[in-house]
């Protein structure tokens, strides 16, 4: 705001120039990594280095120009960081599987399209608040889609995908965002009621069930769907998102306690009832004994070998053997990166995520309106928890559950959803950073 205030003539904010500089840096890093990976693997520069650099430059330039037009005051760090992660992910996918790389390039283009479309459609974050029940229905509908008889598809024992004309899509990725919007607007609307007890029982004020019921229903329903679809990672993500947002919005520590209890109950239930969950826990604790059983510890151990092979400095791009890790391009891509870029590369990736999450939370802090503040918190939480769940799983810190690593893993739905998430965060950032005068002009133009 200080910057905006210093530019009363509403010239293009300095933030966009910063962003452009960072984007150039990201492109250079990605291009360099791409060349190194090709040199390491084949001993020659990639034949398509020209078109490759051309395409990423073009894509990011379009995104940047869109930002200048649609969200000129938004944060300058998020887009270049996402572009860097996306680029690193692409290099590793290309290094592992040429066919997937082509698709990933297409998905990136579509993702950036979705990013711009979101910025274009959502001119003010507060506009979303009004459609809270539409987003609730949309979220649940998206979650339910894979259970439909014809289009729903099972992959690796989880029913998370829909297949339309040869293209598989994971609608749950988008559902997370829709539901985060719903939670934010609902919790803000009912904030006071949720924060303070309205029923007096003896000396205690307790929550009136009728106020919290819709949220509980949404949470329970979504959780059930995740369980039916065998997506434990998303289940946990969703749960953490909900409890985190509730706590941030109300400040009642009781919700954390309730969350812990519900988590214990849910986890126990899942362990008792869902074979998938049992085997995940079992292969987390005993990867070696289950080394040769299908779905056992093989993947984890191959990932462990790969990371250990990398050591501190890594084998070098293209010089490792990440093709030995099952699902190296999707769930286990972090192991592949850690093998070739080492502890330093892995730590850099972690730092990039922390930068994004931290920026997201800073955007939340700067928001004046509750809805935007809570939505920014929720979106940052999605990013943080998803990253933690998959990297924690790959490194065997926590049980392995199949979620994607945002912006890096191969996967169209994940990439599109994350670009939409990014667009929303930037929109919120832009809203709170726009100088009042500029905003007024904007409104005048609109009206």
């Amino acid at each position: 705001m200080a910057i905006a205030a210093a530019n009363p003539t509403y010239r293009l904010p300095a933030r966009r120039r910063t962003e452009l500089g960072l984007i150039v840096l990201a492109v250079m890093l990605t291009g360099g990594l791409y060349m190194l990976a090709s040199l390491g693997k084949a001993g020659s520069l990639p034949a398509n280095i020209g078109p490759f650099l051309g395409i990423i430059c073009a894509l990011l330039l379009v995104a940047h120009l869109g930002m200048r037009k649609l969200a000129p005051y938004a944060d300058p760090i998020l887009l270049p960081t996402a572009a860097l992660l996306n680029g690193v992910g692409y290099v590793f996918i290309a290094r592992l599987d040429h066919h997937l790389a082509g698709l990933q390039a297409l998905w990136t283009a579509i993702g950036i399209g979705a990013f711009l479309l979101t910025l274009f459609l959502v001119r003010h974050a507060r506009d979303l608040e009004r459609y809270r029940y539409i987003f609730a229905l949309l979220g649940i509908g998206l979650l339910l889609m894979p259970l439909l008889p014809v289009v729903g598809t099972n992959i690796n024992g989880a029913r998370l995908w829909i297949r339309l004309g040869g293209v598989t899509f994971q609608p749950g990725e988008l559902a997370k965002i829709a539901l985060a919007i719903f939670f934010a607007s609902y919790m803000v609307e009912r904030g006071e009621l949720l924060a303070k007890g309205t029923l007096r029982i003896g000396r205690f004020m307790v929550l009136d069930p009728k106020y919290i019921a819709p949220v509980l229903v949404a949470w329970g329903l979504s959780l059930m769907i995740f369980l039916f679809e065998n997506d434990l990672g998303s289940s946990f993500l969703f749960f953490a998102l909900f409890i985190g947002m509730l706590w941030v919005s109300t400040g009642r520590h009781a919700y954390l306690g309730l969350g812990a209890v519900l988590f214990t109950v849910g986890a126990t239930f899942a362990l008792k009832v869902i074979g998938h969950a049992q085997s995940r826990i079992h292969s987390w604790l005993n990867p070696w004994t289950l080394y040769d059983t299908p779905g056992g510890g093989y993947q984890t151990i191959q990932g462990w070998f790969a990371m250990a092979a990398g050591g501190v400095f890594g084998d070098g791009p293209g010089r490792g053997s990440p093709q030995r890790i099952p699902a190296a391009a999707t769930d286990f891509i972090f192991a592949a990166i850690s093998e070739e870029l080492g502890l330093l590369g892995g730590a850099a990736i972690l730092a990039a995520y922390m930068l994004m999450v931290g920026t997201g939370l800073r955007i939340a802090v700067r928001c004046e309106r509750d809805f935007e503040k809570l939505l920014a918190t929720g979106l940052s939480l999605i990013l943080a928890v998803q990253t933690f769940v998959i990297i924690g799983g790959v490194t065997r810190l926590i049980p392995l559950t199949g979620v994607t690593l945002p912006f890096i893993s191969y996967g169209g739905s994940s990439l599109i959803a994350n670009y939409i998430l990014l667009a929303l965060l930037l929109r919120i950032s832009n809203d709170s950073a726009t100088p009042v005068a500029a905003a007024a002009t904007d409104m005048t133009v609109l009206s």
Partner: protein
Amino acid sequence: MSTYSEGPSAQVRLTVLAVVIVCLFASLFARLWFLQVINEPKAQAAAQNNSVRLVYTPAARGRILDRNGKVLVDNTVSEVVTISRVTAKAEPEVISRLALLLNVSNDDLLQKVKDPRYSPYVPVPLAVNVQPAVVVYLREHQSEFPGVEAQAVAVRSYPYGTVAANILGYVSQISGQELTANRKRQGYQADDQIGKTGAESAYEDALRGRPGVTKLQVDSKGRVLDRAVAQAPVQGHDVWLSIDVNVQKLAEESLAQGLAAAKFNIDKGTGKNYPAPGGAVVVLNPQNGEVVALVSNPTYNPQDFVGGISQAKFAQYLNDPGHPLNDRTIQGLYAPGSTFKLVTAVAGLQTGIINPAQYFNDRGYLQVGKLTCSARFQVAGCFTNDNHQAYGQVNLSRAITVSSDAYFYQIGATFWNDRSKYGVDGLQNVARQLGFASTTGIPLPNEAAGRIPDPASRAKEHAQYPKVYTEGNWFTGDSVNTSIGQGEVAVTPLQLANAYATFANGGTVWTPQIALKITDQQGKVLQPLSPIGRGHVDIQPAWRDAMMAGFQGVAASGDGTAHSAFSGFPMTQYPVAGKTGTAQVQGKAPTSLFVSFAPANNPQYVVEAVMEESGYGADAAAPVVRRVYDGLFNLTPGQVVIGLGGKD
């Protein structure tokens, strides 16, 4: 308005959230540090072992030859049709086409594709011994059979058919129990072949050779990234047996003829034909323990095991009452009957119970109980000669020649009655010295030890199984029974032949030797296998002469028990010494035995025949042995003529 944005509390909560997230990421970093720096050497070592898969190519086994270099077990090339598992999975119609071509059922082939014994990195064998025409068809129509290959593999072949099958043994797939930690260390795989019986098993380590090893670098899906031949297969060594295949063949034919002829003979006790279901012949060199022939009848065809024996065929062998897979020469347990008198005579001489000059009045029986015995009738407590015959005044030589039981009963009874002087197992001790009641140590597997009963073993059995062994005490009658190789005495044909070899060579107990040397493929001797002496039995020349005279009389003397079997045999040129035996078996016709050695003045061969339920030793076994001698001494072997003399 909500409390959310009011005051600092919301900002504080967001800060707390940020701190929590930083902590989570810090834990990820710590974990990465642990995996990539602290725990790295351990993982590197584990990874080495896990990304490399070793595939073993079995080496061709060494050959087995007879003492003159005639090949008894060779290798031949067999066409094996294999399929890659990837193809089998991806293109099931290939399996159907193959099933038609090989004329087997689809399910059979699918079963084989799933066989977990085969390494997932090598093609699975679907059919062995495939006809050349089929192989040609497969090669000409390769496009219809992707992933299918015909490979030539080495399998066992038997130029002499079933000859010496009991000695050679067979090769078959290693079983779970055989695949011990030790075998795994030697590089055995679950689909490997291993010698199961006979020489194939005894000399497995020499015959097997060194399997080829290919190192495969595999990826996460088990696809082969790289392959390197770490070690080429090396064929196993050749084993030269002490067997002479001509003698073996001769002995096998003689026994088969003898058994066939014995079936025509009528058992006077029952009035029925002798069943003569099987028997054994042993030929060995008494001077060094080399086994020249070991015959076990009935036998099996080792060719049936080539390329994997069918369940049905194997079950047929196992359920055959004649136990064709067992080697009777080392696993068959028989009462030795009168052939055991060798032991009793030596024991009597060693202890001084008898001496060669002393005469004994054979009245046809020995009275042990209180009742007065009669030569003609069966009385309790009386041990009679065969056919209740009385031989009158007999010395040791004559007692052997005519097979006087009473003479030897007397020795047995004395051992027990004067046990304060000779010990409770004086007789048994000599039997043990001569190699009974323990395995002879021949390198063939599954040899039986046999048994020589004594008071201690009797008491032990009674204590353990009082219902089966109702009597725990030892009586004079037991020693009397033992003295003529009856009662609970059980010996293997090889033990008995080896005991006579000891007598023939003057007292040395040899460990019977089945192989002479191990050579490489070029014939270079890698390991000579020398005769091994096990011990010495005191047989003084005077005793030996007297006994020798008796044994020679058996075949040569007019009233010798085996005289008729050796009629027309050139006794002066090749004097044969031997002893007949007719062992009573509870509920069955008697076992016919004849053990001999020749030439008596310089023994070169011990020849023994043991025939189950075939009648008198003189009638069935002696003619078989005679025919073997005919062959050994280059006389023309005639037909085995089963005698009807009814002599023990």
